[in-house]
């Protein structure tokens, strides 16, 4: 597609429920990143996918968080048993590759509210 697409744009869920957030990167971009933006905070790295390599999960805050990327394209971030502290904007970005001089193209994000 022309840009990075994220869905849903907004999600309100009850504490304890599971949620899935979707990211559709730019066609041909092999690298995909998930970040979390909390109110008044910067961007917190969550997970990174590059091609068919094993993902870098070093930023996931707990084992309630997981992500997968199917066919090297669409990615889904899953949060199990959501907590109020999970409320944030979840941003997805894609890049041509993981060389450091490549910039990212970001989606508009999913605003998650846990009530």
């Amino acid at each position, binding site marked *: 597609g022309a840009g990075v697409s994220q869905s849903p744009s907004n999600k309100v869920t009850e504490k304890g429920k599971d949620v899935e957030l979707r990211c559709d990167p730019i066609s041909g971009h092999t*690298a995909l990143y998930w970040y979390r933006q909390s109110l008044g905070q*910067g961007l917190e790295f969550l997970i990174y996918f590059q091609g068919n390599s094993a993902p870098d999960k070093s930023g996931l805050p707990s084992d309630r968080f997981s992500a997968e990327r199917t066919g090297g394209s669409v990615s889904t971030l899953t949060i199990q048993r959501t907590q109020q502290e999970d409320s944030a904007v979840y941003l997805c970005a894609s890049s041509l590759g993981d060389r450091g001089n490549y910039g990212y193209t970001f989606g508009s994000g999913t605003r998650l509210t846990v009530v």
Partner: protein
Amino acid sequence: AQSVAQPEDQVNVAEGNPLTVKCTYSVSGNPYLFWYVQYPNRGLQFLLKYITGDNLVKGSYGFEAEFNKSQTSFHLKKPSALVSDSALYFCAVRDWGGSARQLTFGSGTQLTVLP
């Protein structure tokens, strides 16, 4: 490890005046440096990057940034601010020789241009 600091949460400037948004970084090797801008309810948009070469980098919307290795800084500047420049600005870094494959972002600086 790589890190970046944006020492000002908020910068206010009058329209037509020059603006500066500060960023300092820490890497063990050499840095790739980026500036992104975020408008309300939008994802981050790329402004400019420093990879190698000329220390003064020019980017979108009339913005520029100067890489200063001795001061480990990469401040964002614009000679004449517009009200439409009001947004949240993020500096980001990646270490050339480091193990991280993702950008590390600062906490962001809210720029307000007053008419």
